[in-house]
């Protein structure tokens, strides 16, 4: 009696406004339940016992959905029944016992008995699901269960059917499809399945190989003077707040991380179509009449409601290219703290665009960073802001993610590609988004001027241009996202 829908519907329809008579109400609704249960039983006998068979049968003459679904489609003209089962079984053997631990308790009995073969085929399918999970597809137990049921319903032996059954049940998003193709090919052989293969969503495959090696930990690049380590030892939280993230040593970084974890990033609020009960506002007919009914039809006081407010969606694009390397970790931790709110989306930008919202949804920040490190292929590579921004807008932004949102770009604006393209895409973004905020860690450097070609091209379409080099700067960024006017910037807030 307390299902999800019930409870919520309850609150919706005016329970909140009532101050008296809970007890009476409960009693009443209990009675009503009793009655409903009786009628329910009257209307639908044998619900519990036989599940869904009777209705299908009873649908009789005209074919109910269940009825004609019984037919196996003979006319599909699929790939000839290349029996996968044989190959399926080979797979676990090749991959060794680890993946398929307890799956074949009977040992290597060559019994052609049906159940044994079925179990082995299942084991192969489970192994496949496991491989998928390893590849990063979120194939939960429930999905796997659905997968097995689906395969069972379809023709088990037919490769294309197994392919589609898995793709339909195990994948949960477009990003999964590419991985699915790969793992499927690895597990069940290479021949392309009967269906069309997924065209990868125009990912810029061109991957600049990042030089992994000698990126110095405390950055002495770009002409910044390395800070003397002695000063760092004395740093308190307050001093740390204003220090450039790039110049911190390990202990300070640790402390910074703890401070970053306490962050919250809420979008500016806006009014929604949703209404909430309120003291003043328009009359809420629903609740008013409901209360009126409770009082036996006597005119009662008018209840009112008003529009609810809701924070806007925040979209954070973090530049993880080489030039941002000293800041990337801190900024991503900042993004992690920000992504705890449900309406924040996080992407990383470098040579590829990667959506990392899901990776960052781990509560534990270190787990999240590990997941993220695995998911982002382009650490410390080049920057192709324009192209990736276009990809973001094509795949997500224009459909609605950026519409009315607060978009935060955390980047130094060093564009290797065509600045003209970046400018055009920024204009496009600006038209879609409620506000575009660019946080540039390099902005705090004395004598900084937005001369980097990309930055200069982007600036006309940026609503607020802030810093992002220190904790204090990030705090201010959060305030700007919340709707504060960007503080007049003077580069002199470094400790």
């Amino acid at each position, binding site marked *: *009696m*307390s*299902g*999800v*829908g019930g409870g*919520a*519907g309850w609150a*919706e*329809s005016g329970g909140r406004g009532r101050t008296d008579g809970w007890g009476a109400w409960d009693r009443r*609704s209990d009675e*009503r*339940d009793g*009655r*409903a*249960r009786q009628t*329910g039983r009257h209307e639908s006998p044998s619900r519990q016992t036989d599940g*869904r068979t009777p*209705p299908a049968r009873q649908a009789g003459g*005209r*074919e*109910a*959905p*269940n009825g*004609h*679904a019984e037919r196996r*489609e003979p*006319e*599909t003209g*699929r790939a000839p029944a290349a029996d996968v089962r044989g190959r399926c079984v080979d797979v676990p053997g090749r991959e060794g016992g680890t993946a398929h631990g307890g799956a074949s308790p009977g040992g290597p009995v060559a019994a052609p008995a049906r159940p044994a073969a079925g179990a082995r085929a299942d084991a192969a399918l489970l192994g496949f699901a496991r491989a998928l999970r390893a590849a990063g597809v979120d194939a939960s137990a429930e*999905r796997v269960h*659905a997968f097995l049921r*689906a395969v069972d319903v*379809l023709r088990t032996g037919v490769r*294309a*059917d197994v392919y*589609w*059954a898995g*793709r*339909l*049940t195990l*994948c949960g*998003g477009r990003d999964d499809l590419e991985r699915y193709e790969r793992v499927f090919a690895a597990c069940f052989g290479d021949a392309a399945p009967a269906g*069309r293969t997924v*065209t990868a969503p125009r990912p810029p495959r061109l991957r600049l190989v990042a030089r992994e090696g000698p990126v110095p930990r405390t950055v002495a690049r770009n002409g910044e003077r390395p800070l003397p380590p002695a000063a760092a030892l004395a740093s308190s939280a307050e001093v740390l707040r204003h220090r450039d993230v790039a110049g911190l040593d390990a202990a300070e970084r640790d402390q910074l991380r703890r401070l970053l974890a306490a962050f919250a990033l809420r979008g500016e609020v806006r009014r*929604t*179509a*949703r209404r909430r009960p309120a003291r003043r506002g328009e009359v809420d*007919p629903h609740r008013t009449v*409901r209360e*009126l*009914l409770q009082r*036996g*039809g006597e005119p009662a006081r008018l209840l009112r409601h008003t529009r609810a407010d809701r924070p806007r969606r925040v979209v954070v694009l973090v530049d993880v290219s080489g030039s941002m390397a000293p800041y990337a970790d801190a900024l991503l931790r900042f993004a992690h703290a920000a992504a705890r709110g449900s309406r924040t989306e996080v992407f990383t930008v470098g040579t590829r665009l990667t959506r990392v919202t*899901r990776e960052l949804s781990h509560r534990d920040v270190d787990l999240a960073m590990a997941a993220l490190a695995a998911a982002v292929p382009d650490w410390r590579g080049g920057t192709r802001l324009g192209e990736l921004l276009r990809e973001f807008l*094509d795949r*997500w932004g*224009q*459909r*609605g*993610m950026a519409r009315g949102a607060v978009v935060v770009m955390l980047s130094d604006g060093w564009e290797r590609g065509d600045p003209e393209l970046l400018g055009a895409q920024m204009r496009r973004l600006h038209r879609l988004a409620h506000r575009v905020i660019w946080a540039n860690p390099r902005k705090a450097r004395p004598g900084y001027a937005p001369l980097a070609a990309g930055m200069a091209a982007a600036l006309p379409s940026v609503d607020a241009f802030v810093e992002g080099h220190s904790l204090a700067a990030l705090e201010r960024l959060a305030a700007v996202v919340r709707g504060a006017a960007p503080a007049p910037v003077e580069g002199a807030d470094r400790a």
Partner: protein
Amino acid sequence: MRARLEETGYLVDDGLATACFLALRLHRPIFCEGDAGVGKTALASALAGALDAPLIRLQCHEGIDASQALYDWDFPRQLLHLRAAEATGVKDADRLEGELYDRRFLVSRPLLKALETQPSVLLVDEIDRADDEFEAFLLELLSEFSVTIPELGTLRAEVPPVVVLTSNRTREVHDALKRRCLYHWFDHPGFARELAIVRRRLPAVSARLAEQVTTLVQALRSQDLLKPPGVAETIDWARALDALGANEVDAELAVATLGSVLKYREDTERARGLDLAAVLAARGA
């Protein structure tokens, strides 16, 4: 299944046919994602046609709530009933209360209607536009095919409706919801398939025109456009050209009617710069 869908004029590929088959057999909703205009919504109406079941559509929007999607009490009628009871002097308060929350005072909104209509096809369109809270409403409905109404109890569908959910991916739909569904990604169709779709949907249009329009759209799609045209736009374009009485299209006519395919100024500019005549010629049309 496939033949049935095709009878309604909706062409399916292997994946989609499998999805529909599984949806019917396993009673799982189909969760459709893909670009706009690739036939996500049309799938639901095709299914409805194929199963000869009514299509019940719920268009999601921001702020949609249970009283708009699920059910609502018919307050005016309840009041009337109350007044009538008073006038006739009914004194039995308990009975009166029982009557007030009777099924006949319950207004079915799309979701409840879908449970009560058997068989039926339920289309929950653009689920990503609704708030996340709304997804929670759907959970019980989609896994149990039942609805709990506090005053009445749990209503359950005898024959679960076939459910199609569509999303444009403006936000990630919650995993709890996706997990209960079959996921299908709609891609843009290839040339042969798209041509077949146009021919099927617009039998009146000449074969040559259909082929040319499809060629052009495929060429446009391979361009780098802000909004690549979907199949819906192809059909629109062919229809528009047909309305102009054209039996075949040349570059000039194509440019004049670009407005039915491309909806952004930048895209139109770009297409103008394209040598449409050459595209047509290359196809040997």
